[in-house]
């Protein structure tokens, strides 16, 4: 007994839910298969930045794709609200990066400069300590300066995820939970996906399973070499508003909680927290905003980013099994609008658009030609 659809999306996280919603919205009868709580669920561990200022440095297609998604985020947020009543809390007041040393400041400026070289719409300002303090009252004495980009914003990632699921269901999309994929067959261009919830068939298939893409990809002739990269996050008690802009490492939610994060650890499939890292996160946050010194931490967690070898996303269609696609990234929140709109159209049309071509995983198998001038 099997059920037939126009498209199957494997993965119910940020990428899968945005893609599935996008496909259903284009009139394609779509099923979204979610593995369940045994999955690593990066989409439940997000910080919530819609962040442009650090993405795609020296990789123009990723930089432009990030800007495209960020520029459609308001539409996505509005559409989710219209369909479901759920507010994502999206706001785009521009974001700061705060530097605690001259080295950090120099590195930041260098990144902005490289990013703006191949972008027409990326804007930034470098700010000295006094200018920065005027824009962000309450900064500590250790702050030496920072950068600002009006392109950046933030949202509540859990409301986004719930909004995408609810909007997908409201448009008559089918969600199957506890439906981890055990096999994928392909007969005359129709994929048959086997799960504990039965067999699902469709001519279009999207692998959007985060770290789970790695074992799934070879089933349809794709290669997705992703590795986990742990991030830890701390959340404070609700505080009266003191921070009107998201910072790359600190943001205050609409509700008043302050989120602290941005650690990067290569520790395999371990999503626990550790005192040493949390101490470092807290210390840097307090040096930036001394008022946080007495803030109580009410929650902490670790989550695993979905990292490719170069940190940039992967978009691909299988050449041996056309109709099978994959979308992989560590910025499911920022890229949500890209996935719901342009990416869903690409899957429907059966062709990766030129602007996403450079993000094909074949880039990992091509040996770099050594530079002879060295």
């Amino acid at each position, binding site marked *: 007994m099997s059920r037939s659809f126009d498209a199957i999306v494997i993965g119910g996280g940020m990428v899968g839910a945005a893609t599935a919603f996008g496909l259903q919205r284009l009139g394609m009868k779509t099923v979204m298969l979610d593995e369940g709580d045994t999955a690593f669920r990066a989409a439940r561990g997000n910080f919530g930045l819609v962040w442009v200022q650090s993405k795609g440095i020296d990789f123009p297609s990723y930089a432009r794709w990030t800007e495209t998604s960020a520029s459609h985020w308001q539409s996505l947020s509005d559409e989710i609200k219209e369909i479901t009543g759920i507010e994502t809390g999206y706001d785009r007041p521009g974001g700061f990066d705060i530097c605690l040393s001259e080295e950090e400041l120099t590195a930041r400026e260098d990144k902005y400069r490289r990013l703006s070289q191949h972008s027409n719409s990326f804007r930034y300002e470098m700010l000295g300590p006094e200018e920065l303090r005027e824009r962000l009252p*309450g900064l500590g004495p250790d702050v030496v300066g920072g950068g600002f980009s009006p392109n950046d914003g933030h949202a509540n990632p859990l409301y986004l995820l719930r909004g995408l699921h609810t909007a997908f269901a409201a448009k008559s999309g089918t969600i199957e939970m506890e439906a981890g994929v055990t096999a994928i067959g392909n007969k005359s261009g129709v994929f048959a996906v086997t799960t504990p919830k039965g067999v699902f068939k469709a001519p279009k298939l999207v692998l959007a399973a985060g770290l789970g893409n790695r074992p799934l990809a070879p089933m349809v002739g794709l290669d997705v070499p992703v590795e986990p990269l742990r991030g830890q996050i701390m959340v404070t*008690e*609700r*505080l*009266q*508003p*003191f921070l009107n802009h998201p910072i790359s490492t600190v943001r205050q939610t609409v*509700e*008043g909680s302050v989120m602290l994060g941005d650690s990067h650890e290569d520790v395999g499939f371990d999503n626990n927290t550790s005192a040493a890292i949390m101490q470092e996160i807290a210390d840097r946050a307090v040096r930036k905003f001394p*008022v946080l010194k*007495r*803030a*109580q931490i*009410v929650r902490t967690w670790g989550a695993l980013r979905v990292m490719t070898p170069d940190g940039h996303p992967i978009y691909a269609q299988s050449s041996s099994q056309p109709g099978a696609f994959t979308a992989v990234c560590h910025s499911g929140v920022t890229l949500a609008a890209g996935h719901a709109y342009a990416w869903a159209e690409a899957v429907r049309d059966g062709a990766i658009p030129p602007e996403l071509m450079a993000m094909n995983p074949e880039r990992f198998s091509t040996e770099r030609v050594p530079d002879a001038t060295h």
Partner: protein
Amino acid sequence: MRRIEAVDRSIVKIFFDGQLIEAYEGDSVAAALLSTGMKSIRDTAVTATPRGPFCMMGVCFDCLVEIDGLPNRQACMIQVYDGMVVERQSGAAAIASDSPSHNKQSTGKQSSGKT
């Protein structure tokens, strides 16, 4: 709400919003407040909805009160002591500006009911 057993512990006096409450040594703040019959001891930060102790084991964060000037304390996880001053937690905690002794001064402002 009332105690199901007679208590032979010594009496501890605390204040809630200025009102004297007789609790017993070993009571959590939440138990002491519930024993007086009150159900709501805070107003939420987002919608200002009245709330009170629920899980009594440190998980739900619905029993937040201000204790001796410190906001957002979990009433179910802290034992009473003589002279403790407990205030209703109304809205989000104030951010202390540069005063190291946090909230003593700001408690008045805080009861203005932040949404």
